[in-house]
């Protein structure tokens, strides 16, 4: 009786103990422009070559502009970083989707979209949200630049086996409640360090009912709970999503692959180090009020009051967060007014996310106090699909801007950012201080909740729309 994590681990041990630190083989290496230049340079200085170029897929996403790209990247520092990726990939024969390629997009959107993420793989990337790919029963986790170089040079990583946590989510979600709300509710429950040292498997009937897009949202946020890896077993939904994608196997090979993939689930009775039970029926739409994803409550809730907290470290953290966020204790969440709305990021920029948001804004208009509402699709192909469905027109008519794909205002490395003290409803994953711009104020929500907030001008319960 084995867990999914254990099966994945055992299937990749090249050298070393099955239960401790081991040399693990890496099947897929995703690369972006920010965490790779120093790794490529170092590899070159050491006179080493990539072990297996065809395992690498590269794309520039963090720095790219989301407005008109015909004149390239304006900022010379960003431009150099993207050009450095282009040059490294050309020199080493690595497949890269360049900025003006229709397939370009956020690395964690394009991997699955291309079928470059397949069940049973180990997937790494110099990006913490690599946990996203665990939705396909992969062992997927973020690495630093030294490890990017290590994987390029050796196709392996020396890693310590994680503890195993099962998050069992059961029951039917209420209308308007999405995977994002489930993720935030879990983080609210276990905290941002709750998953530290663990690989999390999400299971239960609620998870089985989720689409692949929703599963990716959930696994994406595993890192916000402190877990490097999140994962979900293979089922028909997984297989159906992968079928026909460019990098996916075809014909006889497909049949062979599918029969193996179907074994990628935790055996009945297998033991976890820790189990968390979540009742999905109780989850309400979530809104973060502070500067950590665990600082979260429900849309019908209130901003907490530090005076009610006895632990001095926690009380100070809360007070500091409220000061930064410019919020008053006990105020209603739905009385928080917004300046900007961002729908995008590797958490929530897939076609399903855009459909849900468009459904909310259809026939409505953004409120007068909203200075900017923007939709940044996760990839060129998501953008195209949305345009074929007419979603771009729905957003534009409602007063949203319709942008080119990239990470954009999730981390504000390009021209999309909050000015000091601007308040944003964001479908991204981190509400840290300064994340979306210096002194910017981020509230994490689902795409539906962000769309509803854009229309109302303040947070409002999607369940009442």
């Amino acid at each position: 009786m084995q867990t999914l994590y254990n099966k994945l681990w055992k299937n990749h041990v090249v050298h070393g103990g099955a239960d401790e630190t081991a040399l693990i083989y890496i099947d897929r290496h995703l690369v972006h422009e920010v965490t790779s230049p120093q790794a490529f340079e170092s590899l070159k200085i050491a006179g080493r070559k990539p072990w297996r170029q065809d395992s690498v897929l590269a794309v520039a996403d963090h720095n790219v502009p989301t407005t008109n790209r015909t004149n390239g990247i304006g900022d010379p520092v960003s431009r150099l970083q993207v050009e450095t990726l282009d040059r490294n990939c050309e020199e080493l024969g690595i497949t890269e989707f360049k900025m003006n390629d229709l397939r370009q997009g956020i690395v964690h959107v394009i991997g699955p979209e291309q079928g470059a993420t397949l069940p049973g793989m180990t997937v790494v990337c110099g990006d913490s949200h690599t946990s996203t790919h665990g939705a396909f029963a992969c062992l997927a986790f973020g690495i630093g630049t030294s490890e990017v170089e290590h994987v390029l040079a050796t196709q392996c990583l020396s890693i310590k086996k994680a503890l195993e946590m099962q998050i069992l989510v059961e029951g039917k979600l209420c209308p308007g409640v999405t995977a994002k709300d489930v993720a935030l509710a879990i983080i609210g429950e276990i905290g941002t360090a709750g998953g530290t040292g663990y690989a999390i498997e999400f299971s239960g009937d609620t998870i089985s009912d989720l689409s692949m897009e929703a599963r990716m949202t959930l696994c994406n946020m595993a890192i916000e709970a402190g877990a490097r890896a999140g994962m979900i077993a293979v089922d028909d939904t997984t297989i159906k999503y992968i079928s026909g994608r460019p990098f996916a196997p075809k014909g006889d090979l497909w049949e062979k692959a599918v029969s193996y993939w179907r074994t990628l689930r935790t055996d009945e009775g297998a033991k976890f180090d820790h189990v968390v039970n979540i009742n999905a029926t109780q989850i309400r739409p979530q809104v973060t009020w502070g500067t950590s994803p665990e600082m979260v409550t429900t849309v019908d809730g209130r901003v907490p009051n530090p005076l009610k907290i006895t632990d001095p470290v926690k009380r100070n953290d809360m007070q500091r967060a409220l000061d930064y966020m410019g919020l008053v204790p006990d105020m209603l969440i739905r009385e928080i007014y917004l300046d900007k709305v961002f729908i995008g990021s590797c958490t929530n920029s897939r076609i399903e996310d855009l459909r849900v948001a468009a459904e909310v804004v259809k026939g409505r208009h953004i409120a007068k106090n909203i200075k900017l509402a923007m939709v940044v699709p996760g990839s060129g192909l998501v953008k195209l699909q949305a345009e074929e469905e007419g979603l771009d027109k729905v957003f534009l008519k409602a007063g949203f801007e319709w942008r080119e794909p990239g990470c954009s205002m999730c981390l504000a490395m390009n021209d999309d950012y909050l000015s000091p003290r601007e308040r944003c409803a964001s479908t991204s994953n981190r509400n840290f201080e300064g994340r979306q711009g210096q002194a910017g104020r981020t509230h994490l929500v689902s795409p539906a909740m962000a769309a509803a907030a854009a229309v109302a001008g303040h947070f409002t319960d999607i369940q009442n729309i």
Partner: protein
Amino acid sequence: MEKFIGCNGLVAPLDRANIDTDAIIPKQFLKSIERSGFGRYLFDEWRYLDHGEPGKEVAQRILNPDFILNQNRFQGAQILLTRANFGCGSSREHAPWALQDYGFQVIIAPSYADIFFNNSFKVGLLPIVLKEGVVDQIFREVDLNVGYSLAVNLKEQTVVTPAGEVHTFDIDSFRKENLLNGLDEIGLTLQYASEIKSFEDKRRIEQPWLFI
């Protein structure tokens, strides 16, 4: 990687839990394609009152007098004392690069985020885990004693206070060896090149779809 011998250094306290990598090194500095020079941007949004951009001269920046690392008594600190879940957030190795470039050799906290913890060892920055109560005690002692320093001995796995109190810490033996000897981990892994090759060949036969 440089060898990590040990450190007898001044301690700077940063009394806050869940310090994330965006706070340690804000994203605008990640546009650099260099590996060095991040120290001057460490904790940029807390350390300075003006907004920092890559290339902006330090002489032109306005220091935040309220930020603890800007106090005279903590100049030249080599050990950063902080709270739980330090380094949460992104995988940016720029965070340990910035801490190290600033002059820190050791971090002491009750816990760390996994990726940051792992990255630190790769660059020769030693993240030490001490119990919450011990960290509390060191915070109090630092507060009361100007020039408070700790002696860190990696080989013995000890942190010794000025009063001679010895706190031991755990460390994975593989990581310890790598730090003590300044080993090239890629070189180490490549010693297994033939094993990697045969693993890969077998995989190519058993799961050919992984090699399309």
